[in-house]
């Protein structure tokens, strides 16, 4: 490892992505799943900043990071609204119970 600060940032990105996806695989509570999605989004924000720095265009990378922040926040809000609706209609937030495709 050359000790470049961007490399450390990329390692952190990979770590956040891995933790987020691991959470998506493991968790059963819908709201916790949204938390895992947010962790994954944090990784995306960081990768935008890091990519801008590595490629030599920091300003573009940062404005893309702003875009990601906004978009992921909106997604989180919508996802939580949907989770609340699921709770109202199905009575539970457990992914094992709310699947209706099973016979």
């Amino acid at each position: 490892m050359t000790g470049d600060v961007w490399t450390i940032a990329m390692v952190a990105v990979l770590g956040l992505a891995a933790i987020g996806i691991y959470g998506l695989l493991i968790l059963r509570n819908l709201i916790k799943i949204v938390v895992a999605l947010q962790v994954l989004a944090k990784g995306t924000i960081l990768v935008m900043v890091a990519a801008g720095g590595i490629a030599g265009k920091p300003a573009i990378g940062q404005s893309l990071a702003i875009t990601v922040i906004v978009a992921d926040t909106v997604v989180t809000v919508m996802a939580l609204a949907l989770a609340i609706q699921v709770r109202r209609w199905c009575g539970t937030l457990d992914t094992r119970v709310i699947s209706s495709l099973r016979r």
Partner: protein
Amino acid sequence: MHAHWLLPLTVFLPWLGAGAVLAAGRARRLAIGIAIVCAAADAVLSILLIPLASDRIGFSLVIGGAFGELSLLPDGFGVYLAAIAAVIGGLAVVFSVDYMRGEEGQNRYYALVLFFIGAMVGLVLSANLLMVVVFWEITALCSWALISFHNDDPKAVAGGIKALIVTGLGGVGLLAGSLAIYAQVGTFDIPTFMARANGFPPRLLAWIGFGFLAAAAAKSAQFPFQTWLPDAMEAPTPISALIHAATMVNAGVYLLARFSPAFADVPGWSLSVVSVGAVSALIAGTMAAVSNDLKRVLAWSTVSQLGFMVYAIGAGAVFQSQFHLLSHSVFKALLFLAAGAVVHTVGTRDMRNMGGLSRKMPLTCAVFVIGALALAGIPPVNGFWSKEMILESGLANGPFWAYVVMLVAVGLTALYTLRCVWMVFFAPAEDRHAHEAGPAMKFALIPLAFGSLVTWMLAGPFQNLLARTLPLHFPGAGAETAGLAGTWAIAAEVLTASSTWVALGVVALGAALWAVRAPFKGISTRLWPVRRAAEAGYGFEAINRGIVKGVQGAGEGLRTTQSGLLNWNVAAIVMAVIAVLCALWLAAGRGG
């Protein structure tokens, strides 16, 4: 050159119409009006395209990457098939106004018909092989949706699924061939492929050729894929006229005609094409002779006539096959629409319950007889000229056994056609209620009957069109015979060829066999095993049922992977990403 905007307009105007029809919702008359206007406009546009035919690409949209450009090429094959699709489509839409009156879901019906017309026009005008595949599958989708239009009738649903699966399996051949062409040439452009086909490795070219042959045979219901077309007769009759007689089943013949110069040198290809055509013509002829369902007889006759066209392409007679395609589209659509009028009033498709309708439905009877004369190949109706031209060139260029088989098929055609006309219109029967066809139906029938009588005169101009725009297919044929003079030359050639008189003799023999069938009843009863085999479709029905069951069973079995559990879905996504990353890693490793 105005073809630049006329081409995409002809392709996509019906799609816009389909969207408008769906959006019209409850306004039933508005929806029907939109459908008629769109179909009529498209018919006019496609006819306007004919003088603009050229061998250069008329319209192209650069997409980039692997897709290349979406290009439309208005050459001889394309413009006349587009005109057939649009004009007969328009007539079918007009006919449907009376036929589908009072039915449920008419918006869906008209939208699907318009969607189909656009896709068919796009199919024949495309110069990009990927676009051909996409339009091919769109026509298969519309065909399935329209066969199963009465989706509360289990027979209709089963017929639709069968058509979809069988033509889809053939479509795999087309897709595989296209991808192989792309891998070899680096582009999906058809003229580029045709120019470079000689440089392909022979085994690859053979695979592509036979793949295309399988796709064409499946789409045109040729042997061994012929069983889906009779079951597709559950569709409303205007659909049978449009899709399963005049347009979609022509797509297979079109495919073979367009690519025949590339594959003509592949060992065994031409012989396979001739065999497929001849066997289909013969088998279908026997099936038509023993069937009692009016539309099934017409369906089998379609298979048989398509067999004629395929046989002609195998014998190298591309112009003759396309000319017969033109005649066949017109007279088969005529026969189907007239049959539709009959079925609509009598209420049954069983010919044993019909008879004596000539007095109650004089116009329908007259146009049906015209179509029957064309089908049997009796002069001066258009079917005679084109069929004789095929037989003549087949005798000259193809194997002799195939010519004999085709002669037998000609005789069988005359036999079952006369049988059909007799049983429906002239057999003595008790007085039953039947009324003449409605005004919209008549409006559609009369132009087609007129066309059957006169389209043979287009032979000369048609030959010019093909020679001018398709130098690869018709080398060395300059602008010789001009216009109608060419037609007289062709007509004279036909009348003086010996094969013509042989064929006419066979036709007379076939008709006579039916007319004096009483003494032959003994032979008929002793041949009952053959009859039973023919009625059971020579075992192909059983094979087909097995294939359909297998596909549906596999689908049900794979349903367990769609559990709807979020976590497993995410696991599947992660596994897919891992697969992609591995592929990237391997590719990078190989690329060094």
